[in-house]
């Protein structure tokens, strides 16, 4: 319970800031008591209801109450006592101001920037898949995870990078921990990025396959973005808001147009198989990442930001007004048996890797040590920007969980189970769902698909279609009624695909820069960022790498999401382990051992989760979980000349063997890389504790700030002594 931190934060530290201790006024005591009550009532209803349907409003109350308390007390405690933020100290944005990379930015604007950079499809997908275990475990993890893990990581990485003029996580690891740990961190980040891009792209493929409406409207985003790019560069240079509004209008037209295409004779041109979509995406990824940014990436980024903010606001309003009931059970049997059809394995550790973004996401450490630290105006703002943005993302994850849980469980499993289990028709799917212990009739399945004007909803795994059906359910209840369901469904699909395409494009570029940087050490010309062939070669390598996993996943007879999503979740959380290890080491190096638990506890938890999950994925002898166990099972069957369920041909059998071998090896490599970083960090920590004098760090020296921000309010000002 988040309230347990209250005594901690009220505890006066012996070496705390020498200035005044804020005393709470009676009014604020009253307000915060009320907030705690709201949260407590929400949790009580969630925890105590068994068997009956409850309203999503209770979930929202639990979430928002907890966030408010965490932000007010825990985040403030971290800022004041642990980090000792000092508003008299000039930030790099002030000291190094150049009007381009570094410039002090209004905190509300920077909050928006940072949020747009961290939030994408991840928090929308993980919670949907995790609904397999019921709404309660997912909710607890999303909320507790963000308060004690994710938001803490984001905020502290942001702070440490800011104190180092905006150094990246990799650079910090190299400079402060050592060459070996630094190199392992760099390679790890690159490899993890490849898996991330492949999984995200696979979500798009699964959402668009065989859907003329979806494919048409999502492909229209390309000409729309190109038009915006040219408009912005030649017709109305720099008029970004105007261009974005035109873009959003065109986007909505494209969604409506998709409905028209679906019913016309043109539909057949937009019904693509998953394999075709893979090749389109790979080709698109390559072209988009070598084109100048103004043509495609920048305009799509604007669109995606507007859509993101708009849709999330709409979703919050929708959930509050519609106040839908949660149809899912609070805790399903799959939580303990580990035999769920969506992802295999028991609650610990697999729930905690399925929901990464929204609770604890290592990728955020890369964003928090990227552009944001170079733009912060005042040190105390790391709380709002680092901690606050992550709380907001967590809220998005909670809404995604709600959207998945308002669906009939039967429909949920009919959509998310592997195709091999469900079979090709609504009848076989209904039968399969019945065997899982849920009910849905073939007619209901057909009607659900018809309501959103899709051919079928059976086996539409990946999370995006499920979220879209849930959102259409909620939205249609508030705006437009049942007749609008199909529009809202495709609106949601479009919105997710848009994020993902932007991430794929930007991620390929970031990956290419990393690769150029790494290879540049070996062969100089490839490292030059202006040498075109170098750009093409490295882009092709990056696209080829994620393209391989995408293709392997999409053609996997046992369902790529089931195979790759755990790999992605573990990878993302391993990156968080790297970030938390680096931050803990830095806290120790700065002589703050007594506060090292702030990042140390989430680190220990995260290492326990990821290494248990990784270990099981490699060594489990249950073929549903272990990559190598499954590999052996199929390899044995190939020797015996048998076909096992899921495989239709011998080719399929070989595919399964190959994919599981590759995935298992990758898993092992990830674990070894992260272990290297952890060991290196531990060595540095021990050295720092034993040293009589503080070890050298790369923190930039104190310079007095000349920016005065009166409007932030007195109670919020965090005055340090100026160390």
């Amino acid at each position: 319970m988040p309230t347990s931190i209250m005594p901690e934060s009220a505890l006066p530290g012996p070496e705390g800031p020498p200035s005044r201790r804020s005393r709470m006024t009676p009014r604020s005591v009253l307000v915060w008591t009320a907030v705690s009550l709201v949260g407590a009532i929400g949790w009580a209803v969630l925890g105590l209801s068994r068997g009956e349907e409850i309203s999503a409003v209770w979930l929202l109350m639990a979430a928002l109450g907890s966030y408010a308390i965490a932000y007010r007390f825990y985040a403030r405690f971290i800022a004041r006592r642990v980090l000792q933020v000092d508003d008299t100290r000039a930030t790099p944005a002030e000291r190094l101001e150049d009007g381009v990379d570094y410039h002090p930015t209004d905190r509300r604007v920077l909050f928006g920037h940072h949020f747009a950079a961290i939030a994408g499809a991840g928090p929308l997908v993980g919670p949907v898949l995790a609904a397999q275990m019921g709404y309660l475990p997912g909710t607890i993890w999303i909320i507790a995870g963000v308060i004690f893990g994710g938001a803490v990581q984001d905020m502290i990485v942001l702070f440490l990078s800011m104190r180092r003029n905006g150094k990246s996580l990799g650079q910090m690891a190299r400079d402060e921990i050592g060459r070996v740990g630094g190199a392992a961190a760099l390679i790890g980040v690159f490899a993890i990025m490849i898996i991330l891009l492949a999984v995200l792209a696979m979500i798009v493929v699964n959402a668009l396959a065989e859907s003329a409406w979806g494919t048409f409207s999502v492909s229209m985003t390309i000409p729309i973005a190109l038009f915006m790019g040219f408009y912005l560069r030649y017709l109305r240079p720099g008029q970004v808001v105007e261009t974005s509004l035109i873009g959003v209008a065109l986007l909505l037209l494209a969604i409506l147009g998709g409905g028209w295409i679906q019913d016309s004779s043109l539909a057949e041109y937009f019904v693509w198989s998953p394999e075709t979509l893979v090749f389109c995406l790979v080709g698109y990824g390559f072209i988009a990442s070598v084109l100048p940014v103004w043509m495609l990436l920048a305009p799509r980024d604007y669109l995606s930001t507007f859509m993101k903010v708009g849709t999330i606001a709409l979703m919050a309003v929708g959930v509050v007004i519609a106040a839908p009931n949660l149809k899912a059970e609070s805790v399903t049997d799959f939580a303990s048996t580990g035999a769920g059809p969506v992802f295999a394995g028991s609650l610990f550790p697999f729930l905690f890797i399925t929901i990464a973004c929204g609770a604890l996401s290592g990728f955020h450490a890369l964003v928090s040590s990227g552009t944001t630290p170079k733009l912060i105006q005042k040190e105390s703002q790391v709380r709002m920007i680092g901690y606050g943005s992550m709380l907001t993302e967590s809220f998005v994850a909670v809404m995604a969980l709600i959207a998945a849980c308002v669906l009939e469980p039967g429909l949920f499993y009919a959509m998310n189970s592997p195709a091999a289990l469900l079979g090709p028709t609504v009848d076989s799917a209904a039968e399969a769902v019945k065997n899982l212990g849920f009910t849905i009739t073939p007619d209901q399945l057909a009607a659900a698909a018809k309501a959103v004007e899709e051919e079928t909803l059976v086996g539409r795994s990946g999370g995006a279609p499920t979220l879209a059906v849930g959102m259409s359910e909620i939205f249609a209840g508030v705006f437009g009624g049942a007749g609008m369901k199909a529009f809202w469904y495709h609106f949601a699909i479009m919105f997710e695909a848009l994020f993902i395409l932007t991430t794929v494009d930007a991620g390929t570029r970031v990956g290419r820069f990393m690769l150029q940087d790494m290879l540049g050490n070996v062969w100089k010309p490839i490292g030059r960022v202006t040498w075109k062939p170098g750009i093409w070669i490295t882009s092709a390598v990056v696209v080829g790498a994620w393209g391989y996993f995408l293709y392997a996943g999409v053609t996997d007879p046992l369902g790529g999401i089931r195979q790759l999503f755990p790999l992605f979740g573990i990878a993302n959380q391993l990156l968080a382990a790297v970030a938390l290890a680096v931050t803990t080491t830095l806290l120790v190096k700065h002589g703050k051992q007594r506060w090292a638990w702030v990042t140390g506890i989430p680190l220990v938890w995260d290492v326990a989760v990821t290494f248990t999950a990784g270990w099981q994925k490699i060594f489990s002898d249950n073929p549903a979980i272990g990559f190598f166990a499954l590999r052996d099972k199929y390899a044995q069957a190939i020797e015996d000349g048998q076909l096992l369920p899921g495989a239709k041909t011998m080719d399929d059998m070989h595919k399964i063997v190959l994919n599981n071998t590759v995935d298992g090896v990758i898993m092992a490599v990830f674990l070894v890389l992260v272990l290297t970083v952890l060991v290196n960090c531990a060595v540095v920590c021990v050295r720092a504790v034993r040293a009589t004098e503080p070890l050298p760090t790369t923190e930039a020296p104190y310079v007095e700030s000349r920016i005065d921000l009166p409007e932030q309010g007195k109670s919020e000002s965090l005055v340090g002594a100026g160390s």
Partner: protein
Amino acid sequence: MSVVRRVLGTVLWYARELTGEAEYDRYCQRHRRHHPHAPVPTRREYQVLRTHQREAHPQGRCC
């Protein structure tokens, strides 16, 4: 009426800041301060500069 206008003004301000449209104004101010005699780049020229900058510093988007 004035409330509506104020809210709309704030929204527009936020949108311009968030998308970076307002960066040009700041850039011009800075340019005049640091190079008072050099001509200020036009919007078009600035737009080119800005995209060059983005080209060289790709920013990752998270999942």
